[in-house]
């Protein structure tokens, strides 16, 4: 579409400064064509303005005075220098490094402890209801209604065959004695035991029904293996375990109407063949974990929870170092000690039930494996000590690890790419991304020599994120 002189004149400034809309340029240029009947007047107008521009611009290229330039630069540097120390000081000593240390040392163990305690409390709330426990205890002691009678006879038959072969087996493999001895104990109440647990067996702090049934399965497997025990051994075991103060306390506790918590031990302990196996597996694992270092620390608390439901001995054992030491102190090698533990677990029930039953069923003698109630707190204490020990170990392990990680992060090759990226984002004005990048850098490597700059840029990028008004100073009235 042809443009009139008015159209061209109206667009003269855009034409002169190259701001013509693309759609109009061709038409306007056509109007100004030198040949083909272009408008000479408009062409002259444009030429005149162009030459005026050219003339005027000759004086508009002065160099600013050097004195002003220097003064500005000095002021700019001084302003930054005056401001610099503040953020540096604030960031270096109290910054993330302190946090890191704190976190490495305390957070994990604390969380683990809190978790374990929470699980214990929850479980005791659920499983240790005084009335129910009392009822169940009585049911177990008085002529049992349905569950109790079945297990006792069933298991009673098994040990009968045992006495003959058992001694040799134990002598040849003393360490195996533990598991073998455990069998009778578990056998007696194995069925009743498992059910007791599934119903919310008292001792089952962390030992949820899952564990109970798992224990029962293991116990059943056990039955297939040669498992026997002599009466003498049972006697010895009983004597041994009658002596420790914890055992005595247990006896006392059971002499009276069982307090809510202690009513359960027998059933709990009965499951313990399975638990012993479990413990053995767990303890092996935990030992491996200890060997590995900080991994053990993370694992232990969980163990502690499971342990709390198991007899004291197995708990101690499960915890490797300290546990084994304790065991060794009382009964020598761990393998020899554990039969005793198991034996200890059952008696309360037996004693409460009455001697007649114990005699009639030889099984009952070895069976006594219920954890003495008093030993549960003890175990808990041990757990705590173990936990504390593992905490310390973990803290010791992790601190150097964290430190060495920082060292390695410092190396330029690692930090280079993220830094370059952050700088690029920053220079591109992508403040949000740049801020995130710097934040990430600072989190990963707060002690980097460049951290001060990152911090500044982070602050700047964050400041830049705030939406802004286009102009700063209010224009004074003209």
């Amino acid at each position, binding site marked *: 579409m042809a443009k009139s002189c008015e159209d061209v004149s109206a667009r003269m400034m855009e034409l002169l400064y190259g701001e013509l809309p693309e759609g109009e340029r061709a038409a306007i240029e056509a109007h100004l064509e030198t040949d083909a009947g272009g408008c000479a007047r408009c062409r002259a107008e444009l030429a005149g303005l162009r030459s005026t521009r050219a003339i005027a611009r000759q004086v508009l290229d002065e160099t600013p005075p050097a004195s002003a330039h220097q003064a*500005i630069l000095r002021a700019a540097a001084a302003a930054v220098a005056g401001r610099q120390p503040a953020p540096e000081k604030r960031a270096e000593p109290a910054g993330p490094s302190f946090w890191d240390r704190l976190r490495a040392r305390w957070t994990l163990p604390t969380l683990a402890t809190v978790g374990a305690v929470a699980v214990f409390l929850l479980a005791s709330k659920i499983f240790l209801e005084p009335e129910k426990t009392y009822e169940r205890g009585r049911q177990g002691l008085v002529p049992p209604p349905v569950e109790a009678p079945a297990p006792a006879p069933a298991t009673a038959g098994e040990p009968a065959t045992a006495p003959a072969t058992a001694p040799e087996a134990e002598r040849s493999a003393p360490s195996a004695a533990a598991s073998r001895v455990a069998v009778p104990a578990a056998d007696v109440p194995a069925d009743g035991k498992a059910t007791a647990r599934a119903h919310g067996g008292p001792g089952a702090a962390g030992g949820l029904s899952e564990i109970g049934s798992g224990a029962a399965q293991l116990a059943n497997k056990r039955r297939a293996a040669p498992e026997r025990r002599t009466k003498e051994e049972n006697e010895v075991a009983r004597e041994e375990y009658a002596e420790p103060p914890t055992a005595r306390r247990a006896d006392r506790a059971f002499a009276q109407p069982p307090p809510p918590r202690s009513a359960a031990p027998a059933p709990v302990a009965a499951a313990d063949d399975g638990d012993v196996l479990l413990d053995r597996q767990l303890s092996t694992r935990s030992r491996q974990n200890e060997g590995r270092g900080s991994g053990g620390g993370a694992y232990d608390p969980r163990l502690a929870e499971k342990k709390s439901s198991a007899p004291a001995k197995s708990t101690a054992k499960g915890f490797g170092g300290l546990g084994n030491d304790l065991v060794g102190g009382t009964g020598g090698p761990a393998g020899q000690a554990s039969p005793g533990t198991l034996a200890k677990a059952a008696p309360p029930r037996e004693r409460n039930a009455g001697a007649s039953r114990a005699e009639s069923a030889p099984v009952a003698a070895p069976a006594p494996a219920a954890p003495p109630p008093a030993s549960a707190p003890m175990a808990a204490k041990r757990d705590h000590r173990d936990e504390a020990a593992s905490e310390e170990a973990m803290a010791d392990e992790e601190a150097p690890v964290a430190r060495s990680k920082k060292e390695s992060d410092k190396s330029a090759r690692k930090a280079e790419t993220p830094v370059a990226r952050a700088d690029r984002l920053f220079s591109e004005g992508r403040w949000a991304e740049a801020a995130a990048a710097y934040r990430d850098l600072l989190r990963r490597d707060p002690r980097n020599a460049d951290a001060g700059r990152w911090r500044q840029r982070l602050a700047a990028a964050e400041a830049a994120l705030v939406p802004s008004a286009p102009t700063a100073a209010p224009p004074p009235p003209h």
Partner: protein
Amino acid sequence: MDGDESDEALMTAYRAGEVRAFERLLARHEKPVWNFLRRFSRDAEAAEDLLQEVFLRVVKDAQESKAAWKGGAKFSTWLYTIARNLCIDRARRAVHREAASLDGSGPAGTESTETLHDRIASTDALADAVVADRQAARRIDRAIADLPDEQREVFLMREVMELPFAEIATVVGASEPTVKSRMRYALEKLRGALADLGAVVISGAAESTRSG
């Protein structure tokens, strides 16, 4: 960081404590700001003070937690707004003093005479290239200084700072058509004042403009 970094990135970097970023900003904008101040204030000495003040404002703003310039705004718009407003403030404060020299006192008066003389005897001036250049420069200075403030600022922002019309409109707080119209008035006035110069200088300058 490379040389292509935007003003905004440089300013943000300076705000983060990078003095070198500010140096680059200064290198980029000092000359246009200076030439704007120099022509807009009509006073070289005042222009030097103003130049420092403009950039000191930038320095100060970079240290403030509640900065006037935010990352989202165009730095040049902000900077030239500062320059313009400082200029106007100063002119207002010194209005009584300025009033006395409105039509040129001292050297300005001489210049004015010269300009008039040059206009009459432009062909003589061309005889000596050096003299001609000096005289021509003075005349151009004078012609620009004679522009009304609102035309002069638009003209300078466009020619010296090379701001697009839209941005000039933002800085001066006027509509874009108004800005273009002021620009046109300014150019036509200059053309009238420098017409005789144009006959000589144009030949070279106009060619370069056309070719460009």
